[in-house]
């Protein structure tokens, strides 16, 4: 197990190098001279030259990449071209907000999705099954900014139970988490249902019943553990898209998160910030999926990960 984790960590190195190359290329493949972006189109030639010198833009591309990589490993992404603040200073607080939002939303999707999926599978074709799957279909098809606006209208404005905007207090967390987590919950519910249905018809479930186990133990101990692998996979993939796709939810609820920051800085062509954000999202995504792979081994010892 330990060996496996070490090996997987080593395997991440080429993946992460690939990511850094792509991120680095962002700046060089987009048209326009960075020095002009910083100083403005009408800046005098020697100012431009000075900036180019400072940023190392006259060095060969491989040298520039190597410097970028060296700094990135030290989590030093330079200074923003727009605010001149250090990128990490700007990014981290906002990253944590979005990370929190994504984590809570994932927990919400797992919790709701699993319960709904299990009920659906155990009572296949019953009224509760049909209703749950109908709600899940709505959850999947609804654009989440619209869901966010509707929730805000009802629970914040009409009923006044929770604040409409912001992030930080438990009350402020509720609506954004539901907004962002609903689609995931629907996906998890549908995945859990089909996976559970498949498992419930297996011979070893009949064996478990023939042993005299209570139905709840048959379902939760014998069926669920077998049914979880596809669900865990989906959750891992969902987490990445939540992290990168929280921007709509952040806009609706006026949350000052990474999504909003990235959009603003893309529009402002503030490359260091964009590069850092993309890199951070990619790294988190890669590690979450490593966790998913490790959890496979815990769920089913038969899976050969080597």
């Amino acid at each position, binding site marked *: 197990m330990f060996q496996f984790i070490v090996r997987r960590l080593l395997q991440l190195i080429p993946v992460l190098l690939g990511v850094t190359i792509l991120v680095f290329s962002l700046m060089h493949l987009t048209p326009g001279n960075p020095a002009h972006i910083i100083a403005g189109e009408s800046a005098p030639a020697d100012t431009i030259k000075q900036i180019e010198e400072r940023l190392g833009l006259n060095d060969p591309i491989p040298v520039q990449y190597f410097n970028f990589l060296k700094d990135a490993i030290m989590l030093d992404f330079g200074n923003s071209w727009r605010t001149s603040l250090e990128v990490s200073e700007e990014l981290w607080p906002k990253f944590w907000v979005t990370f929190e939002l994504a984590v809570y939303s994932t927990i919400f999707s797992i919790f709701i999705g699993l319960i709904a999926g299990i009920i659906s599978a155990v009572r296949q074709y019953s009224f509760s099954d049909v209703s749950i799957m109908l709600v899940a279909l709505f959850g999947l098809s609804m654009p989440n900014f619209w869901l966010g606006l509707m929730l805000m209208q009802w629970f914040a404005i009409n009923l006044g139970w929770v604040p409409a905007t912001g992030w930080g207090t438990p009350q402020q967390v509720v609506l954004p988490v539901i907004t962002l987590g609903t689609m995931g919950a629907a996906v998890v519910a549908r995945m859990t249902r089909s996976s559970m249905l498949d498992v419930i018809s*297996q*011979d*070893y479930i*009949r*064996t*478990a*019943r*023939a*042993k*005299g*186990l*209570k*139905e709840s*133990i048959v379902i939760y101990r*014998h069926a669920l*553990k*077998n049914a979880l692998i596809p669900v865990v996979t989906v959750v891992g993939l969902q987490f990445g898209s939540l992290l990168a796709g929280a921007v709509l939810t952040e806009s609706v609820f006026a949350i000052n998160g990474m999504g909003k920051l990235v959009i603003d800085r893309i529009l402002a062509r503030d490359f260091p910030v964009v590069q850092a954000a993309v890199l951070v999202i990619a790294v988190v995504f890669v590690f979450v999926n490593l966790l998913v792979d490790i959890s496979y081994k815990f*769920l*089913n*010892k*038969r899976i050969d990960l080597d």
Partner: protein
Amino acid sequence: MSEEIILDINNLRTSFFDDDGEIKAVDGVSFKLPKGKTLGVVGESGSGKSITALSILRLIDSKGKIVDGSINFKGKDLTKLSTKQIQHIRGNEISMIFQEPMTSLNPVYTIGQQIRETLKVHEGIGKEKGNKRAVELLQLVGIPSPEARLKQYPHELSGGMRQRVMIAMALACKPDLLIADEPTTALDVTIQAQILELINDLQDNLGMSVIMITHDLGVVAETCDYVAVMYGGKVVEYQDVISLFKNPRHPYTVGLLNSIPRHDIDVEDLEPIRGSVPSPKNMPKGCHFAPRCPFATDLCNAEMPSLDHLGDDSDVRCWIYSDRWDGDPEVNVVDQKTTS
């Protein structure tokens, strides 16, 4: 029969319900099992033998239902027990092993965990004592180095070993009755013989009663004391095993015997039974076997005969043995070749 009867199934009917209506999988099955004996339930696929077995422990899936009849086990009618009561019987007083050892064990738990679970639920035995008992059980069923097996997962064992584990699990709480649903069908011939021998030995040592569900008359000859032959959801013949092989009464039983090679009688060609088992959705109106029976008459096609007791401890469901028989009075059921 003077012996104590451990299981008495009376007129059991199990049906499945779907959009097309009712499918009568088991249609009025009755038989008795004396204590400590082995009853073979024989029939082709679709004869209702497995559903009968699953009905005893009420393990049929949600679309199936026991619609009528009683299953008396040690003075209790299993069809009338609450879910909790039947769960107390499963794996404890009546155990069951299945056809597919490859898929009958849960792939995500170790052998030890799965055996301990049965001990825990019925006898409240904890982990340490459970491990000791599990080792004893694995020894009992002839698994080498049992301590090491406890920590293994099912995929690390062969099919024969897994079936032994299933048997160990089934024996964990010393059941009075073991139901074996085609326990050897999925195994190699050499392993089959080992498993059958194991079941026989364990039965002798532990005094269990056994119901052996099989389509293989060879298995019956080797293991059973009594035989119930099933066809189309009904028992068509019930005899002790020696009489059945010596003196089969029902034309279907004769057909089954004729379709297996025998070394004690010189037979030129094997004689298969013509046609195939009718679908439970459109069973013939009269005797279910009539369309395939070489002796069938108008009476057979019109009316289902009852399971009647003949003089020497055998029950047969066939018009030939009744007063109303309208065919050749000299008919000899054993001689099917000339008439077909």
